[in-house]
C-alpha cells in the first residue's frame, strides 16, 4: 500500500466509511510477513505450526474478532497518522491477539486440571450443584469464603512462593502453569480459607499468578535458571535460534535495554536514569520482559545467552 492511499483510507474511515479492501490487504500482508520473518513461535499458531492455512486462519480470526469486532482498526487509524506507524500498531495488535488466544487456552487447561483434582481426590468434598457448587477440604471449613477480590488476592499471596513451570522452546505446546504438587498446595491453602466455587478458585489463580500474564509471579534473573535443556544438536540449535529471534521481535527497544541492564546488574534506579523513565516503568518493563521470555521459551539460558549476544554485537 502506498502512503497516499493509506491517508485516503484513514480519512474515509474516520469519516465513517467501511474499511477499503486495500487496507485489509495491507493488514494481511503485515501479519503474514510478521509470521514469516519474526520467528513467531509455533505454539502461537492455532494449528501448532505456521502453515499457510494457519496464517490465514489466524488472520481471519484477528480481523473478525479484533480489527472489526472490537473496533481496533478504527482505534489504530485514529492514532496512526502515517503508514509506518499503522504497520507497527497492527503488528502489536496481531501479536497481542495471538497471545490472548494462547492464554485463553492456558486458562481452559488449568480449569480442567483443577476440576479433575477436586473430583478425583478424597481430600475434597462438595455441596450444591452446577456453577454454584462449593468445594471444601474434607477436613476443612465448610463456610463459604465471602471476601472480595482484595481479600481473595491477599489469601492467594499469603500462601508463599510457588514453582511455576514455563514454556520450553522444544515443547511446542503449552506447559502447565503449576506442576501437580504445587497446584494441590495452592488449592489446599485456598480452601483452608473457606469453601469456594471453581470460579472463585480460578479468580484466585488469576490474581496470584496473573493468568493474563503467565510469568508475572516469577522474577527475571538470567543466572537463576538451571543449565540449558537445549544442547548442541543441530535441531536444538535451530530451535534456540528461532526462540531467540521470536523473543527479540517481541521485545520493545526499552525492554531490550532493561534486559541488558539486568545482565550488567544495574539497579532499577540506574536503569530508570539511563532510560529517562520512572522506576515504576522499569518494574513494568521487567514484568513484561519476563512474560515475553517465558512465552517464547527464551528463559532457557542457552536462548537467553543468544539474545544477549545478539544485543551486544558490536558493543563490547
Amino acid at each position, binding site marked *: 500500500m*502506498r*502512503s497516499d492511499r493509506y491517508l485516503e483510507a484513514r480519512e474515509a474511515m*474516520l469519516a465513517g466509511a467501511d474499511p477499503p479492501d486495500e487496507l485489509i490487504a495491507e493488514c494481511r*500482508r*503485515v501479519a503474514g*510477513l*510478521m509470521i*514469516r*520473518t*519474526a*520467528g513467531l513461535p509455533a505454539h502461537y499458531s492455532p494449528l501448532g505450526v505456521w502453515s499457510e492455512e494457519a496464517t490465514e486462519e489466524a488472520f481471519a480470526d484477528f480481523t473478525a474478532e479484533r480489527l472489526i469486532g*472490537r*473496533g*481496533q482498526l*478504527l*482505534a489504530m487509524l*485514529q*492514532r*496512526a*497518522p*502515517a*503508514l*509506518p*506507524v499503522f*504497520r*507497527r*500498531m*497492527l*503488528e502489536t495488535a496481531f501479536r497481542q491477539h495471538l497471545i490472548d488466544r494462547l492464554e485463553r487456552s492456558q486458562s481452559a487447561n488449568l480449569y480442567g486440571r483443577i476440576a479433575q483434582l477436586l473430583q478425583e481426590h478424597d481430600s475434597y468434598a462438595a455441596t450444591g450443584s452446577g456453577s454454584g457448587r462449593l468445594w471444601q477440604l474434607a477436613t476443612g471449613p465448610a463456610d463459604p469464603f465471602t471476601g472480595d*477480590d*482484595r481479600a481473595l*488476592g491477599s489469601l492467594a*499471596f499469603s500462601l508463599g512462593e510457588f514453582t511455576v513451570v514455563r514454556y520450553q522452546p522444544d515443547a511446542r505446546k503449552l506447559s502447565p502453569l503449576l506442576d501437580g504438587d504445587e497446584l494441590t498446595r495452592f488449592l489446599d491453602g485456598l480452601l483452608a480459607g473457606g469453601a469456594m466455587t471453581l470460579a472463585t478458585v480460578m479468580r484466585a489463580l488469576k*490474581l496470584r499468578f*496473573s493468568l*493474563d500474564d503467565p510469568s508475572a509471579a516469577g522474577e527475571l534473573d538470567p543466572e537463576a535458571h538451571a543449565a540449558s535443556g537445549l544442547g548442541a544438536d543441530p535441531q536444538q540449535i535451530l530451535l534456540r*535460534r528461532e526462540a*531467540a*529471534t521470536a523473543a*527479540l*521481535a517481541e521485545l*520493545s*527497544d526499552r525492554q*531490550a*535495554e532493561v534486559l*541488558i541492564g539486568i545482565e550488567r546488574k544495574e539497579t532499577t534506579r540506574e536503569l530508570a536514569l539511563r532510560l529517562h*523513565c*520512572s*522506576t*515504576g*516503568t522499569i*518494574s*513494568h*518493563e521487567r*514484568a513484561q520482559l519476563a512474560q515475553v521470555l517465558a512465552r517464547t521459551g527464551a528463559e532457557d539460558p542457552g536462548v537467553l545467552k543468544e*539474545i544477549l549476544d*545478539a*544485543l551486544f*554485537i558490536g*558493543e563490547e
Partner: protein
Amino acid sequence: MSCPAAIELAAPDAEQTLSEHLQDCRRCRALLARLRHHEDTLEHSTAPAGPQAPPTRPPGPGGVWSFWAPGSEEYLVAAVLDADEVELLVVPLLADTRWASENDIELPAQTLGYPALAPVWAGDHVLAEQSVEPLSVLSELELEQLSDGYDAIYAGAAIAEPAGPAVIGPADPRIAAHAAIADQLRAYSAPWSALQGAEELGPVLKARREDAALPIDAWAQQIDVEPETWRRFESAQLDPYTAIPVRAIAAATRELGLLASQRIISLAHASVKAHHADQATHAAPARARRRRGVAPRARQDPDVAREAADRYAAALAEELGL
C-alpha cells in the same frame, strides 16, 4: 523512539532507510541481522512531525480529538474537559483497557467505535496548537462522568463507576503499568509543562536554558542579544519591547525546543505589560536622576503598556508563524 514494524525491517534497503533508528536501537540491529525473509516491494515512508494543517475549528469541552507531540509518531486520542484559546485540559482515551483500576473510567464502544479506557488520574493540559482533528463528541453524561472523575481523583475521593477493581496491594502489576502509561503520556503534556512555572516569558526561558545547561553568555551571543539584557529579561526585570527584537525571542524559543504557541505569545505579552514604562519617563534626563541620588519609579501608563504588549505579541506571533 518507537521501533519500526518487522515489515519495515524486512525491506531490502532497511539498513539505509532506517539508519537513524538502527544507530540508537540495539533491539532492531539484532533483529535485522536475523531476519529470514526480505520484502522486495515495500515502499518506505516517514511519519510526519506534526499535523498537516491546523484544525478548522478549536476544540471545546466534550470533544474527542487527536493530539500530536514533538518526538512522538503516534497521536493521542483524548477527551477535552476544558478549553480556551491557549490550552486544553484533556483526559486520554486508551484503546488498551487491560490495566483498568478503580481510578479509571470505561467509555462504551458507542462513543468511539471501540471500548476505551479514560485514566482520569492521567488528565493533564496540552497546548491548543497540539490539536489535530476532531474524532467524536461525548454525551453530556459522559463529559460529566469524566469531569466528576477527574475532580474526584484530585479531591482524594472515589470514582462513582470505576472501570476496574481496586488495586490489591503493592504486588499488583497495575501499579507499575500505570507508571509506564504516565511516562508514555508525558510526551503530550511536556510542551505545555515547559511553558509553566512563571507568568512572564523571561523566567520560563531561563528555566529551559538552565535545564539544557546552556551558559548565559554564550547563549545570549547565539541569539544576538547583549548578555546583560538577556539576564535582566530572564529575571523578569526588563521590558522586551524596548530591548529584545522579536526575532531573537523566536530564535530562543526554537533553539530551546519550545512549541510555537499562543502560550508563548501570552507570556511575552505579560512581560511587556509588566515592565513597559511610558516613553516620556524614559526620555527624562538621566543626569538629573543621578544628581538627586534617587531613582524615580518608572511611570507606567496601563493603556500604553497594553498597547505595546499587543504590538509585541502580534509581531512575535507573525515571527513564529502563528
